[in-house]
């Protein structure tokens, strides 16, 4: 060991050297590191950001919190002035009454079937269409894509009446009207000019299968952007190995795009689940029980007292909680795909 301060580099052995230098004192190092303006700015920014995010997280979570606590409150809690957030007389009556009177489980099963079908078919169909737009150049593909954008831009609310009419008197390009098979009803032969598809899953199923349902234009756009980022060489090698276009799509492309498809499935499933527009246009209240039918005030609950308005509001919130209860589970498992899928999509192109 060489202890001399003046020598800076000494040869220790044949292959190694030893470097001695005068280190800045610890105090000096700390001062430079922690008293610089950039460090202070960093800390302030970090604090500012954290507090801001915390505050916004509060804004997002608070309504859910209030809904949850409100759902356990009994009428006494609403009369009691001292009760604000935490119920003094917690009760499950609200839940029980709603579940008992609104055919909750039936609505759940119906909606699950509907949303699952819509989610899966929309995901698949939009992947198919998006792939077609991303990887194939054919005459009119630009025009067709503009049409897709058009379906995204014209809100279905604008088309409310004609959507209803279309499926109330369903007819494909006037063919049924022309052929008109006869059916005898009350001993009279009535010409069938159309089929009533409302109050069944058919309208939404048809819309999903043709990529026209809620925000499907957005899904097609996302899938297209995703597939544009997939290198062509991948498919070319599959073609060389003798795969057809569709075999390539199913065995190479689909497995590749699973994260993106999960994201889209999440959107499609959840938006269909809480959907209010299509279910009220296509289903009459007397028909199949679906989620919107759950939002009601049970008759067994007495709301006729001073703070009754608040109680009704709490009941409605409880209905909402019951509607999204299954979705919360889905979200907990699926939320990381949401960001991942979008990040990988390279939506920017």
């Amino acid at each position, binding site marked *: 060991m060489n202890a001399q301060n003046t020598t800076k580099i000494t040869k220790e052995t044949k292959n190694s050297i030893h470097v001695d230098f005068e280190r800045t004192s610890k105090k000096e190092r700390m001062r430079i590191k922690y008293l610089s303006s950039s460090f202070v700015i960093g800390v302030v920014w970090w604090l500012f950001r954290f507090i801001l995010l915390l505050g916004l997280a509060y804004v997002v979570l608070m309504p859910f919190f*209030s809904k949850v606590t409100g759902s356990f409150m009994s009428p006494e809690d609403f009369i009691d002035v001292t009760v604000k957030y935490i119920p003094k007389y917690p009760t499950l009556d609200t839940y029980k009454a709603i579940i008992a009177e609104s055919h909750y489980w039936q609505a759940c099963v119906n909606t699950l079937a509907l949303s699952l079908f819509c989610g899966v078919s929309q995901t698949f169909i939009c992947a198919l269409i998006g792939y077609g737009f991303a990887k*194939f150049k054919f005459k009119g593909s630009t025009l067709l894509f503009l049409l897709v954008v058009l379906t995204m831009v014209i809100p279905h609310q*604008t088309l409310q009446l004609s959507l209803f009419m279309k499926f109330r008197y369903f007819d494909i390009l006037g063919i049924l009207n022309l052929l008109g098979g006869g059916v005898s009803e009350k001993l009279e032969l009535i010409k069938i000019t159309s089929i009533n598809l409302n109050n069944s899953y058919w309208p939404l199923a048809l819309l999903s299968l043709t990529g026209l349902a809620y925000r499907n234009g957005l899904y097609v756009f996302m899938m297209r952007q995703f597939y544009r980022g997939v290198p062509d060489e991948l498919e070319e090698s599959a073609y060389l190995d003798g795969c057809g276009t569709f075999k390539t799509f199913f065995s190479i492309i689909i497995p590749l795009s699973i994260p993106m498809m999960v994201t889209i499935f999440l959107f499609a499933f959840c938006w269909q689940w*809480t959907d209010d527009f299509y279910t009220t246009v296509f289903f009459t209240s007397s028909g199949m029980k679906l989620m919107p039918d759950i939002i009601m005030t049970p008759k067994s609950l007495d709301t006729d007292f001073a703070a009754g308005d*608040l109680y009704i509001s709490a009941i409605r919130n409880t209905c909402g909680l019951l509607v999204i209860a299954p979705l919360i589970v889905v979200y907990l498992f699926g939320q990381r795909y949401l960001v991942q899928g979008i990040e990988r999509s390279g939506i920017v192109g």
Partner: protein
Amino acid sequence: MNNEAKLQQAPQKINAAPKKKKKGASLDSRKARAGWLFVLPFIIGFVIIYAPIVYDSILYSFTKISIVTGGGYRLTWVGLANYQEALFVDATYIQTLSAGIKQLIFDIPAIVIFSLFMAVMMNEKMVGRAAFRAIFFIPVILSTGLIDKIDQSNQLLSYMGDTTSMDMGDGGAEQTNQIINAMDVERLFRNMVIGEELLDYVVGLVNDIYDIVNRSGVQMLIFLAALQSISPAIYESCQIDGATQWETFWKITLPMISPMILVNTVYTVIDSFTSADNQVMTYIDKVYDQPSGNVLSSAMAWMYFIIVMVIIAAVAGVLSAYTFYQRQER
């Protein structure tokens, strides 16, 4: 029957495609045919369902409908009567429309800027990033449709209630509704020379923060994706050249994601003019539910749609002048 059969045979046609390929046809035309097959579901849907619906909807807005017993309906052409009724007879439509459009124009910058800000913050590495992300995307999934509708009336109720009764059992809506009041902000800004309108605007924004957070979920996702796609090498070289974070944001981040600002602006417009809390849409819905109001609502919706289209075109025109595209050579 021809088309119906086509609809049912679509899957078989898909299976048959590779066989066809073996016969002659050049690679290009084969690929073009495959492309058509891939987008076939959309074409079928567009021709059979969507185009007729749009056509009908426009047609209905010029007619009166009467339902015929025995399946079917009759249309009587009334020309522009529905539009005239909407514009001149209906007392509240014009009011609602102008208020709604004003609201829309004020909301767009708020939502776009907020979502950009949030995306930038959530893109940075920090403690609890995953948790924050999970929280901020809750509204995208959960606060849509029905829940949105419940929240609307919920807030209204607590708004009415908060002056009469102090015991807000349902504290949340009240809290989010009134985070600050105008007095606080006024005190803050008294010495600055900013107009009364701007003050009202800021107060309105802060009080609507819940609404804004709720509505900027998808935009945040899109911005986040855009931010992720900027090459870290660019930031690195900026750092080496001595640019501060502030400069980097304005000179690099903003131009790089400007195409997405355009996309998000258009998306925000479309989203907010279809959302349940849009007053014009609520009003049109109300008209739709009235007896024989359905054709009137069609006319109103189309007028609204055209106005919004004009807004979108204007905004897109202005923004695209400032949009920077990083052209990649292939």
